């Protein structure tokens, strides 16, 4: 029971911190563009405003359109409960890697379904792109996680965190690859194709407004922090004293997000086929890593 309290506290803390991390990213991005940038709490201000605004529901929008933001949000919250964050305690006994992938993948699909059912042409193109990107990136993610599972000979999250030691080639390479995939998954440039603003007007999100838009944006921030958390815990050694994790964890998450945003600031957007091509080249690499991992190198 005590665990549950800890997990709830963890999740609550993550819910608060996720938009703040986005705020930090925006600030840093601004600085890199010679601007002053918004206050760090800006993302929170935006979200609060969105939550206070009504969401427009048109006659043509279906049920899927209305409920999918909430499903995605619930998915993300559940996924966050599965991974350790400020403390190592988590609900990981509920599920393993497979559940995690399932949660991430299903939210992509719900996002696509929701936006297709909004009936807007830009949303449809966005959804198209989202699906083709998601299909490939989830395959990649599955391959990486399979590599981890092969290394540890287990699927439970408990054993996967951390992946190092052993300091094998395959462990290090697969962590790097996971970081790349996490980058793609978190809709960052040059991979923010489904929501490309100039091409298809914020794509998948175009028809959402007010509260549902807020929930969706919030879910995206949560997804980012989820991916960061996984990367952090793949590396963070178990030997670190329990008391230090509440400090080390946010510090490393922020460090990671800063790195990501620095990369993002100096990238242009890829065309969908270019992005897919890039991701396809990762597949054989991952397969090789998987084989190496099987032989424990």
């Amino acid at each position, binding site marked *: 029971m005590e665990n549950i309290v800890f997990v709830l506290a963890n999740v609550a803390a993550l819910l608060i911190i996720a938009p703040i991390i986005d705020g930090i990213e925006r600030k840093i991005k601004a*600085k*890199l*563009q*010679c*601007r*002053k940038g918004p206050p760090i709490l800006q993302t929170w201000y935006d979200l609060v405003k969105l939550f206070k605004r009504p969401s427009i529901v048109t006659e043509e929008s279906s049920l899927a359109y209305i409920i999918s933001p909430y499903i995605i949000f619930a998915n993300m919250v559940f996924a966050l409960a599965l991974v350790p964050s400020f403390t190592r305690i988590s609900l990981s006994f509920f599920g393993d890697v497979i559940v995690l992938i399932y949660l991430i993948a299903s939210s992509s699909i719900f996002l696509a379904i929701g936006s297709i059912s909004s009936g807007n042409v830009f949303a449809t193109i966005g959804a198209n792109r989202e699906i083709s990107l998601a299909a490939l990136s989830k395959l990649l993610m599955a391959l990486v996680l399979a590599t981890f599972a092969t290394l540890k000979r287990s699927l439970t999250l408990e054993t996967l965190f951390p992946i190092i030691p052993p300091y094998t080639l395959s462990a290090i390479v697969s962590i790097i690859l996971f970081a790349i995939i996490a980058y793609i998954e978190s809709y960052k440039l040059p991979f923010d194709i489904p929501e490309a603003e100039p091409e298809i007007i914020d794509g998948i999100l175009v028809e959402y407004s007010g509260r549902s838009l807020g929930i969706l944006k919030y879910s995206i921030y949560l997804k980012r922090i989820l991916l960061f958390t996984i990367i952090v815990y793949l590396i963070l050694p178990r030997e670190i004293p329990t008391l230090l994790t509440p400090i080390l964890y946010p510090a490393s998450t922020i460090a990671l997000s800063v790195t990501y945003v620095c990369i993002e600031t*100096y*990238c242009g957007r890829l065309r969908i086929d270019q992005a897919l091509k890039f991701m396809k080249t990762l597949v054989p690499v991952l397969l090789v890593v998987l084989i190496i991992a099987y032989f424990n190198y």
Partner: protein
Amino acid sequence: MGSRLHILKEALRTGVVTKKYPFEPIEVPEGFRGKPSIDVEKCIGCGACVNVCPPNALSAEVDLNKGVKRIILFLGRCIFCGRCQDVCPTEAIKLTREFELSTLTTNDLYQVVELKMAKCEICGKPYATIRQVMFTAKNVSKDQRPLLLLCSECRSKVSAKYVSYARW
């Protein structure tokens, strides 16, 4: 990669350039074409600015009942070209350096100057503002000045030999 680092270096060298405005005022360069403003003491209501204003932001209206002429400046249509300043005979209308003109109602964008009109000595019709009559009088030889007290029609009736110096 090299190019990216180079751009990063350039950005860092430039540093944050954002101005503090609106929390600190900013300096506007000399000769900036800002809000046109009518000096109500100098304006003679001649309407030269009205004739020349391309978007008709300046308009004139004559209220015969009250015997007044109004010069109306509507900033919400002004294009800040400064032609009014060029033609004003008394330098009453000038472009200031004021650029903070935003308002929450269009009503606040108006400046109205209402000037009393002189009545024709013969027919009693208001024909020009008193200020304009006095301004013109200064530029006309003394013997012709009494004619300025008449409207253009009466003047031409009274005396064909006088050339009208001012057009109303």
